[in-house]
């Protein structure tokens, strides 16, 4: 008994997915965050599509990838059908992940300020320490006003971005190896690199899920990843800095999604 491996039979989908993401971004119109009565629009539809396409596929990639056996860790699955099924699920997730990441990347290219939102500032280290200390309840810190993304999240973002880029590049080489002769010496570097990046990704995603979805304190923000909105009160409490920005540019119209919009300077720290 043998199996059809989609990495062979449908390899073209892997190459198509990034362009599909790019094209989708090209035709997407973004909505910037804004205060809407007693709630604040935090994530527009595009952001939610980016997030969930990437999130679902990343989780699936990790689950199937780890099941297939990462580095020296034994596979979780038995030989034959379970392995082939995992490879095919991995394939489906690859397509979705490439779409999601390229959609996100292109959107970011079109709107560089969104990238800036994610990048850490000089406060990152101190804020991150305090943030997790508070969440875990063993540090008696007072949090300064955070902007749209916590500084801690921004640090994690860098790690995730680096891992993602590594995974995509090495992954594409691995896919290419199904169709063309890639030197064994190259594969001997690519495969472990892919696996190491997987471990890094895991190191990002597990805490991310914990702090952003499992901890009750983060449930409003989790809800916003579905509805797009958080309550004004929550924004006031957790993201005072961001709310201040939004209030400052409150008058700005929907047209702010223009590619050439100038980034609003960061407000001074309150307190």
């Amino acid at each position, binding site marked *: 008994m043998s199996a059809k491996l989609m990495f062979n039979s449908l*390899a073209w989908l892997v190459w198509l997915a990034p*362009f599909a993401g790019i094209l989708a971004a090209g035709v997407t119109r973004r909505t910037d965050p804004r205060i809407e009565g007693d709630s604040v629009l935090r994530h527009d539809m595009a952001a939610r599509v980016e997030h969930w396409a990437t999130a679902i596929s990343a989780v699936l990639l990790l689950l199937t990838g780890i099941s297939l056996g990462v580095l020296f860790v034994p596979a979780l699955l038995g*030989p034959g059908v379970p392995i082939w099924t995992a490879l095919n699920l991995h394939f489906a997730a690859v397509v979705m992940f490439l779409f999601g990441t390229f959609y996100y990347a292109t959107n970011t290219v079109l709107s560089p300020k969104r990238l800036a939102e994610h990048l850490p500032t000089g406060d990152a280290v101190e804020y991150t320490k305090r943030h997790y200390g508070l969440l875990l309840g063993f540090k008696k810190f007072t949090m300064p006003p955070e902007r749209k993304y916590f500084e801690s999240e921004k640090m994690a973002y860098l790690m995730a971005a680096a891992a993602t880029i590594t995974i995509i590049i090495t992954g594409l080489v691995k896919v290419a190896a199904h*169709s063309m002769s890639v030197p*064994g010496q190259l594969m001997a570097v690519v495969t472990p690199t892919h696996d190491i990046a997987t471990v890094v990704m895991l190191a990002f995603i597990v805490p991310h899920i914990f702090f952003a979805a499992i901890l009750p304190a983060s449930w409003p923000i989790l809800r916003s990843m579905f509805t797009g909105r958080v309550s004004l009160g929550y924004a006031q409490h957790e993201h005072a800095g961001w709310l201040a920005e939004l209030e400052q540019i409150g008058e700005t119209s929907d047209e702010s999604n223009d590619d050439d919009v100038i980034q609003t300077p960061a407000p001074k720290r309150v307190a």
Partner: protein
Amino acid sequence: MTTSKRNPEGIITMKADHITKAPEASSPAEGKTFSRREFVTSLGGVGIGAILGGMVVSSVLLPEKVFAIPASGGYLLVDTKKCAGCTSCMMACSLTHHGETNHSLSRIQITQNPWGNFPEDITISQCRQCPFPACVEACPTGAMHADAKTGVRTVDEAKCIGCERCVNACPFTPSRALWNFEEKHAQKCDLCEGAKFWDQKGGPDGKRACEEICPMGAISFTTQIPAQNEGGYEVDLRTGTVWDTLGFGGAPQSGGHLG
């Protein structure tokens, strides 16, 4: 984009590649400037078009290139009736390839039934270096391949993705392609070309560890493909040798132990 197909002989054919093709076809007219958004939209559209177009072109227009898999430069011969089941060959195989004696990593497998009737009590499962190797055909990445110089069917371990299709594709039981669960790659008999813990040159022109070690002389080697049947090669390494005098062919009436 790339596509690959395999013809019935398991030969991999490669086709056009457009992965990074620039969107020249939609180059804007001189003097007109594109916004970033227009550029990425075009890039996405053209990329999709190129991949789909490439698929059509490659599947309809381009002839597939055919590479014949060369015959192996040699074959292990085994005479099961001479085998004593000591599994020294298995330990020599794993020792020279992996630096440890390990039955599970051996590319030649001896299986036996202590209560069986000779000669069915022992089976030697050695790779036959098939002329039409199902393992090579089944490999999705070219990791299982025929060595360009010697024709020996072997595995480029770094290319192996662990799908074990070769293990399943081998028409013999137990599969001659085996899963190295310690290093996580498929492997098979390479006639000792890759025996890195042994200073002897392996391969068709060199020495094979199992053959060197077998105390009964049950393993031999030939460069000509041997006659074979369902059960294996038809090999008799006994008749006409000193074996005829050792009594295994049917002891004459004897008198017990000096009694």
